[in-house]
């Protein structure tokens, strides 16, 4: 036999537990906020809502020990007297009945319903031989929101006439509705005790509740929130460490570096024969070879570069290509430019060996090649290209990919949580 009765919300179809089955009359669905009548075997929808459950300082279903007895938080309501608003929680223990927890501006009170009605009315009353003085005139208190289950028909918008009577820090509260008068004895409770009793909030598998607010007023935060946040901090830490370790490993595995540089002159409007720049050596089983082409300034020209790495031992050639282009002009939006005077080409999986680096090139003008005047004074227009070929570079693209893969997971969780908090 379980201690709770499971029902299905007729409004949203969600499964809800009735924790005080047999006692509870009203239940606000935790999923959609709809108000249900659970007093009879058949569940009846009283009022349909589609608002998410409000964040209360104590999550519904949380259990804690106060004054030696275990209590389950079964109901929560947000109340207001027009000036201030506060939260009240209904506690239940099947062997002890109901109690109240009131959270007013960070202070907690524990309330016990009275069966023996105080004597007297108005300003001064007597209860169990002690006098209590009225603190204020009766004020109208409104239930602004209701969540969970109650043993009477409580709905958002319900009002009651409330009067408080004090004796030291003990309070007797009288609440009158049209057909009922209820008395509650309230004593102050340190927030630390609440945190100690209800701090470890329950984890409900497969059901998320947004992080409760206001609990910090009691001096602590529920475990669930901190647990989740900590877990996320760990994830980011782990991702950072992995990224750094990977960076070191990739740099170490990419080296050592062997460099050769040279310069070629490319006449605009024609192509040059492959020219040997120099020799580089791949000393690991495989290395990347990056070839950078850097040109002097030009406008509206492009240079095609054909690279060949020729293995000295086998005369096998590995080919790659580069393109340097730069254009400027003016159109209806104003001046524009496109391209760059520099390009980098990365050749992967170059096996161990010694390579001669050959570069052939072809340069052209845009929109057309300049008219070649074999003028003795100016000569033919050429573009000077500085070539840098080297081994031992690492692939930054691969490292950035790793970084994205590492951060995607915690980042997604963070995004999801922020979205939920809104």
């Amino acid at each position, binding site marked *: *036999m*379980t*201690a*709770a*009765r499971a029902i299905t919300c007729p409004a949203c179809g969600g499964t809800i537990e009735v*924790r*005080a*089955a*047999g*006692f509870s*009359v009203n239940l606000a669905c935790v999923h959609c906020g709809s108000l249900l009548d659970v*007093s*009879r*075997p058949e569940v009846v929808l009283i009022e349909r809502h589609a608002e998410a459950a409000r964040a209360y300082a104590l999550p519904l279903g949380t259990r804690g020990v106060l004054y*030696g*007895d*275990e209590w389950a938080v079964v109901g929560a309501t947000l109340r207001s007297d027009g000036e201030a608003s506060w939260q009240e929680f209904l506690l*239940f*223990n*099947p*062997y*002890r*009945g*109901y109690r109240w927890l009131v959270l007013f501006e960070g202070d907690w009170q524990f309330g016990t*319903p009275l*069966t*023996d*009605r*105080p*004597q007297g009315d108005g300003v001064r009353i007597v209860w169990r031989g002690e006098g209590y003085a009225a603190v204020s005139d009766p004020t109208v208190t409104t239930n602004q929101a209701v969540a969970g289950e109650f*043993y*009477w*028909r409580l709905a958002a918008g319900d009002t009651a006439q409330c009067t408080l009577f004090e004796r030291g820090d003990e309070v007797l509260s009288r609440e009158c509705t049209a*057909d*009922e*008068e209820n008395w509650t004895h309230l004593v102050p409770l340190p927030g630390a005790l609440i945190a100690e009793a209800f701090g470890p909030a329950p984890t409900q598998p497969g059901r998320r509740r947004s992080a409760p607010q206001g609990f910090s007023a009691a001096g602590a935060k529920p475990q669930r929130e901190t647990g989740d946040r900590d877990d996320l901090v760990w994830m980011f830490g782990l991702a950072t460490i992995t990224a750094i370790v990977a960076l070191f490993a990739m740099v170490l595995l990419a080296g050592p570096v062997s460099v050769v540089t040279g310069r070629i002159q490319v006449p605009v409007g024609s192509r040059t024969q492959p020219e040997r720049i120099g020799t580089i050596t791949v000393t690991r089983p495989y290395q990347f070879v990056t070839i950078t082409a850097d040109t002097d300034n030009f406008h509206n020209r492009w240079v095609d570069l054909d690279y060949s790495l020729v293995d000295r031992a086998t005369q096998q050639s590995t080919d790659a290509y580069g393109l340097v282009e730069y254009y400027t002009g003016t159109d209806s939006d104003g001046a524009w430019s496109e391209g760059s005077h520099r390009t980098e080409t990365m050749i992967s999986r170059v096996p161990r060996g010694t390579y001669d680096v050959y570069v052939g090139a072809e340069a052209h003008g845009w929109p057309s090649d300049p008219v070649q005047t074999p003028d003795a004074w100016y000569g033919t227009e050429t573009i000077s290209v500085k070539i840098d070929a080297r081994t031992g570079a690492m692939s930054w693209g691969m490292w950035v990919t790793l970084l994205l893969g590492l951060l995607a997971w915690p980042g997604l969780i963070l995004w999801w949580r922020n979205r939920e908090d809104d």
Partner: protein
Amino acid sequence: MPVRGAALPYATCPYCQTLILHDARGVEEVGKVAVLPFDVSPIQLGTVLRPGDQRLTVVGRVRWAWSGGSWNEWLAQADDGTPCWLGEAAGLYMLTVEAQQWLDLPELRDFVAGGPIAPGLAVQLGARRLVASDIKEVECLGSEGDLPLPTQVGTRMASIDFRGTEGEVLSLQRDGRGASAWFGASWDLAGLRATNLRAIAGWTLPKDLQ
């Protein structure tokens, strides 16, 4: 099916939910009663209560509903056979014994004759003054165990509670067969020194109730 005390002529068969009347003429099937809806009441058939120097055993239960909810009335029998009703609502208890003499109060004559009772009506029971605080039309939801009255689903009655300043209560009932009066006090489980309570999964029976 064991049929207990002759003072309790009605019994609910726990297997087929049939309400049975047994008297001098034999055993007669009265009708079906509903399976009681699940609740987390700590009381069960067989629970023993020791308020003061009495010893009461719970032998039956009726579940009543009103427009605003429902509650249990447990029938507890003293060792000498005196029946008591233990009302259970919102985790609080009311233990009453029959006190028909109060039906003769002039303020209640109208009620006995079938009239209504106004909220706030005060009655004087000896030195105590009690005020009508709870006036309900109730309907039976179901029953279990041995009972002095037939409890088919839908059985209706009027139920009125008068309360005093020290938790004392006068409970009046009126159905088609007539009116009855019950007098007693408010209790909690610890005060009733209840034993043989129902074990409720997920909850620990408090030490003082073991």
